[in-house]
C-alpha cells in the first residue's frame, strides 16, 4: 500500500517559510492571501487493506512523523 502523509503547521503557529513564499509570489505578480509550508512524506507499507494501512500510519504520525503541539497531519492511502 502507498500512503501519503501531509504534515502542516497548525493554524495560529507563525510560519515564516509560508510568509517568505507568499511574499515571493507577490513579487511575481500573483495575488496570494495566505501561504503555509508543510511537508509530504510518502510511504510504502505492508498491510492487509487500506484501513489497516491507515491505522499503522496513524501510529507513525503520533509517535514520530508529526509533533502534535505544532503540527497537524492528514493521511491518504492508495492501493
Amino acid at each position, binding site marked *: 500500500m502507498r500512503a501519503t502523509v501531509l504534515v502542516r503547521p497548525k493554524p495560529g503557529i507563525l510560519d*515564516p517559510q509560508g510568509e517568505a513564499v507568499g511574499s515571493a509570489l507577490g513579487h511575481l505578480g500573483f495575488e496570494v492571501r495566505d501561504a503555509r509550508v508543510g511537508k509530504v512524506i510518502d510511504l510504502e507499507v505492508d498491510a492487509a487493506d487500506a484501513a489497516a494501512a491507515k491505522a499503522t500510519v496513524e501510529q507513525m504520525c503520533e509517535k*514520530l512523523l508529526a*509533533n502534535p*503541539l*505544532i503540527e497537524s497531519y492528514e493521511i491518504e492511502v492508495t492501493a
Partner: protein
Amino acid sequence: MASPQPRIGVVTYPGSQDDRDALWALAALDAEAVPVWHGELELPDLDAVVLPGGFSYGDHLRCGAIARFSPATAAVRAFAAGGGFVLGICNGFQILCEAGLLPGALVRNESLRFVCRDVPVTVERDDLPFTTRCTNGRRLVLPVKHGDGRYLPPPDLDPAQVVLRYVDNPNGSVDGIAGICNETGNVMGLMPHPEHAVDPLLGSDDGALLLASLVDAARDRVLAAI
C-alpha cells in the same frame, strides 16, 4: 576531607558537535566528565547528565525528533524520573522537548536565518540546580548558534518554569524565552551555550555560573549519598 568529584555524563548522539566542549568545560569546573554513547541502554553511575548541542541525526524530520528514540534517551528519561539532574543545551534542549521531558517545541527562527552571536539573557530562577550561583535578574552573556531556536510554549506553561529570557530576542521565541525547566526543577533546557562561555578568553565566562551550579548540585548529591 577533600570534596568529592561528581560524575557528570555527556551523551554523544550521531551528529552531536558540542559534546567535547561540554566535557572539557565540566572537567575545568572540577567535575569528572564522563562520555556516554547514545547507544548505551543504561547510564553509568552518574550524578548529572548533559545533552549537548549539535545536529543529532542531521536534524532530519524535526530537530531532536529521532534522537528522542535513542537507547540513551530512554535511560536519561529514567534518570530524570528518579530526580536526577538533566541539562539540555541547544540540540539537547530540542531533544528534551521532543522526548516530552520538557514542555513545548523549538521551531525555525522567525527570521529564517541561522543566528550565531553572543546574546544577553536574564536569570529568572536562581533556586535551581542549574542556577544557584546566579541571582534573579542577573544578566549573563552567552553565545547562541542555531537555526531552530524559536521556543513555542504549550498554552498551559507555568510562568515559573521560565529560567532564562533573552534581553533582545534573537529568534522570535514566545515571550523571549531562552531556557525553561520542568515542573520539578530537575530538568532544564536552554538554547544558549554555557559550555562555550567558561573562560574570559572565549569572550565571556558567564556560562561557568550555570555549569558550576550544576557541578555544585551534583556534588551535593554525592555528599548526601555518603
